[in-house]
């Protein structure tokens, strides 16, 4: 299906309901779909399960916690060992108000890829002998132990691209590809904010990172400014 182009991030979120499972792309400052996050905040949708590599680590996803819109996070960075710069999510987590499934970053990326690729599970050595293995099937093969990890899918993915064409093809810039490209494959509804929308045919076919088949909605948005906090 040809992607639909929306006029505002708020309109682009139409139909997202309370209790939705939402993937959010980006890596810290790089290509976070912050305009869509802000629209989701304005929308007030609640009881969300958010899947993102980071929440409260230089991203604005944490702001959804202000009005307690997030019930659960599936993430690889979510809680610091120190409480010196505590995020809203962390504070709620430490008070037992939100649920957290902490996933190694590579396993998170691969589970999302599996969700998009029709893979029912995969074996990885990541996490063997650690807390991550708790409750998971451990398989012995060729003298090694492997964890069976399961795919992740979402109702909605919010991602940010550098350029989109009207058909829905996406091009990411530099380290902006990160989880955006993977999550675009694994949700029933994929909503993209793009720095630029170009005519179909303008993106070079060899340099399209996300083929149009994965994209449902596009909205043009300037990047929300991110300041480096100088860590």
């Amino acid at each position, binding site marked *: 299906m040809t992607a639909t182009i929306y006029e505002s991030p708020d309109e682009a979120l139409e139909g997202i309901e309370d209790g939705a499972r939402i993937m959010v792309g980006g890596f810290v400052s*790089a290509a976070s779909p912050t305009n869509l996050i802000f629209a989701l905040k304005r929308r007030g949708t609640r009881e969300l399960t958010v899947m993102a590599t980071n929440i409260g680590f230089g991203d604005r996803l944490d702001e959804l916690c202000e009005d307690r819109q997030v019930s659960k996070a599936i993430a*690889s960075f979510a809680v610091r060992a120190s409480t010196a710069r505590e995020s809203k999510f962390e504070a709620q987590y430490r008070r037992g108000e939100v649920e957290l499934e902490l996933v190694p970053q*590579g396993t998170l990326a691969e589970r999302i890829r599996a969700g998009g690729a029709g893979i029912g599970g995969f074996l990885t050595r990541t996490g063997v002998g650690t807390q991550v293995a708790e409750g998971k099937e451990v398989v012995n093969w060729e003298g090694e132990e492997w964890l069976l990890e399961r795919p992740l899918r979402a109702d909605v993915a919010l991602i940010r691209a550098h350029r989109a064409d009207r058909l829905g093809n996406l091009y990411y810039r530099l380290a902006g590809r990160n989880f955006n490209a993977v999550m675009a494959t694994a949700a029933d509804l994929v909503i993209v904010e793009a720095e630029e929308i170009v005519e179909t045919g303008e993106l070079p076919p060899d340099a399209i990172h996300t083929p149009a088949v994965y994209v449902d909605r596009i909205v043009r948005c300037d990047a929300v400014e991110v300041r480096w906090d100088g860590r």
Partner: protein
Amino acid sequence: MAAEGKARLTRELVAMRVARELAPGSTVNLGVGLPTLVGAFVPPEANILLQSENGILGYGGFSEEAFDPELVNAGGQPIRLNPGASFFDSAASFAMIRGGHIDVAVLGGLQVSARGDLANWSVPERGGGSIGGAMDLAVGARCLIVAMEHTTKDGRPRILRECTYPLTGRGCVDLIVTDLAVVEVGPAGLTLREVAPGWAPGEVAAVTDAPLALAEDLREMEL
């Protein structure tokens, strides 16, 4: 203890010592914190390819220029690119890591056991902690170097018979570089290979919980 109060290596000197372990032309992932400093001590002519798990191969050092939010390493820090750098998505990046394509990963550590178990993501008494890419790097890198302080702030050993903190990986550490020593992890346990200037092997052993064999060519760290 006699050794208390003696000078230990600075973080920069630990990073410099780690940098000497990196073979020319190798592909290296530097973890957040102390390991990140290693990059500054890698000479350009060594042609080290730095990988960052957010999807970059071939970045240079930190950028002093304008901050580009889409050009950051796994610690979110602004970086420069070297010629020949490439970008890829997170699934491809961890395929590279888990698949054994990274020669060396340098990670920070909280505890390392006699068997090379690593704990580096959670301090249970404080609660919390995040895994990030550490568990993938622990199993995926061909060689894992842990760069850490030899003891906690209050002087307790970080090199232990058994880790007491939640593990990052089991039997994954190959080399430990601390502010006091270089310790190799082998099938038979730990071997003390180098001591910091001014430190005697016995003094290092006294602040190490796990048994340390002494290398035949045990020597003072060259810095």
